[in-house]
């Protein structure tokens, strides 16, 4: 059975491997340069010969940086081009009747086909994630944004789970619809919808956020690559201060909400002691997921997508093994 799977899909496998190899070459070459620059800048800074601005550090690799961000879409590719046609194309061409009339049970046929495809999806997601995570190391250290939406989604474990989910979704859509093009469309729409819903609505609530209150003048920044979900200021009577756009702010407080003693400080002059005294009654707050929860969140999100993938594979098995053909 494995031989047949290989013979049927060897072009896809080779194409996928070639894409990964090209991506790896690009990432490794530019990644080494980025890491060198970063370490040189760090050493210079430590030696006191000048700290270069971090933003300039990655300018030379902007194209690769864009490519790295765009790996956000890499997992769905395996679902679209490998998963959706896997069973749908066989149903369309009637070749299931060829395979099922060899001395191989339908269950074994399905297990081997789906098994190799899931393995391929895991390798695809895993290799891309390893490369992206490694390449982004200096960037993460500089920007401290590994936990933020968009970055969180392309590093660590989750790309593997997304790839497995996309593959399972494509296979299940193909098994139920039995037509390749509709299965591809459903896979694309389904993947985007599920990823967006979970990232936007569910992920912020995996663990309840930590809220820290602080003196607005002193300010407060949580340690490491935390994920901020809310930030604001409470007025002396304990109500949140509205935060309109396009007005000057002082210590996070908009001009119209500032105490009178601070009126002139907005224009750049240093605040008077009475102003600072008045500001002591304001409290800043920040709600966030601390940096040390990064792997817990990666684990939870991975678990959710693996469970979804497992459910889709179970649905596929039902559609292929239980239903008449």
């Amino acid at each position: 059975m494995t031989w047949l799977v290989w013979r049927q899909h060897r072009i896809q496998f080779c194409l996928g491997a070639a894409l990964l190899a090209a991506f790896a070459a690009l990432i490794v070459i530019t990644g080494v340069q980025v890491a060198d620059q970063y370490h040189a800048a760090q050493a210079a800074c430590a030696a006191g010969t000048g700290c270069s601005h971090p933003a300039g550090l990655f300018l030379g690799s902007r194209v690769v940086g864009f490519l790295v961000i765009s790996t956000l879409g890499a997992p769905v590719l395996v679902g679209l081009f490998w998963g959706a046609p896997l069973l749908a194309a066989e149903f369309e061409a009637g070749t299931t009747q060829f395979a099922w009339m060899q001395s191989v049970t339908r269950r074994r046929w399905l297990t081997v086909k789906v098994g190799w495809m899931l393995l391929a999806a895991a390798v695809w997601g895993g290799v891309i994630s390893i490369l992206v995570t490694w390449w982004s190391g200096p960037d993460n250290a500089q920007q401290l944004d590994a936990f933020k939406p968009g970055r969180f989604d392309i590093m660590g474990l989750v790309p593997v789970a997304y790839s497995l989910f996309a593959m399972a979704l494509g296979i299940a859509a193909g098994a139920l619809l039995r037509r390749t093009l509709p299965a591809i469309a459903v896979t694309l729409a389904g993947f985007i919808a599920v990823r967006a819903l979970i990232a936007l609505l569910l992920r912020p609530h995996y663990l309840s956020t930590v809220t820290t209150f602080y003196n607005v003048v002193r300010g407060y920044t949580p340690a490491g690559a935390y994920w901020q979900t809310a930030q604001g200021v409470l007025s002396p009577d304990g109500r949140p201060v509205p935060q309109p756009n396009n007005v000057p702010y002082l210590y996070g407080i908009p001009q119209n909400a500032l105490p009178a003693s601070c009126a002139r400080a907005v224009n750049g002059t240093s605040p008077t002691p009475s102003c600072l005294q008045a500001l002591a009654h304001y409290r800043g707050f920040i709600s966030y997921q601390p940096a040390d929860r990064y792997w817990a969140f990666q684990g939870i999100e991975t678990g959710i997508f693996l469970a979804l993938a497992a459910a889709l594979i179970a649905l596929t098995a039902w559609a292929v093994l239980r239903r008449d053909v």
Partner: protein
Amino acid sequence: MMTRQEVPGPCRSSVGVPGASTGAAEPVAIQTSGLSKRYGKVTALTDCTVTVPEGRISALIGPNGAGKTTLLRLLAGLARPTAGQASVNGTTPRQVPAFLADIGFLAQEIPLYRRLSAEDHIRACGHLNPRWDAASVRDRLNALNIPLDRAVGKLSGGQRAQVALALTLAKQPRLLLLDEPVAALDPLARRNFLGVLADAVAANGMTVVLSSHLVADLERVCDHLIMLASSRVQLCGDIDELLTEHQMLVGPRKDTTAIERRHRVVQVTRTPRQTTLLVRLNGPVIDPAFEASDVSLEELVLAYMGQDAPPALAHLTAIGEDQ
């Protein structure tokens, strides 16, 4: 003018029927009882009871939509019956390698991987079957000048059918199920295909069920008949016996109640001067006014189809018989 008469009763077969020429102990390749299949509200097969002894080449005949494909798929284990049982090679059709190894099924669409070559198929099947005679496929296809290394999608329809048949035969099944294998072929390819099939069966002694909606396709190679119409079995048994059991009686236009009481009348055709009866005999015909003659397989099949056909079609058949 024609009267229609209901002929009740399920399939008869030579096995276990008193007076049959073959012994009751003859091994059976296929035995079904009350097999039915519904897809939603559509009834594809109703109460199908058939027996095919081992070594027969059975013609599964019926008009389009009669349930031929459904019966074959149930026998191959590709579909599950809604009611009734089937026994194939002594077991219920199911998804176990040992059962599948003994079944060769060639679907109507002749499913092959279009981008793969015949050689690829040979190698794939080699990995998928415990018994596999790769050399036989290569020999057969070489003899037919079919290239082994070309994608099968680029072969002609007749060549594809030959590749599929060679692959199915190389599995060395005990039971070969072929669903309208020659329907899409031109007359020459049809003859080649059936010739190859007949040779292979003669060499291996397997049982074959071969479906078609045309009697002429199957008459030369088959020795057993299952006839389906409107999802029901109309006729089943060895062709020689069926032909012996049925007679065409031609006589004057007169009352035929006496004959109908003794024999089973399948079809009656009356003209102003004479009456033609196709009967299933139950003993000798005593009435000297009627002259008995043998029936052809085609006449037999048409008669049984006619009794099930809608009145308009039956009328046309009757006119045809008159001439």
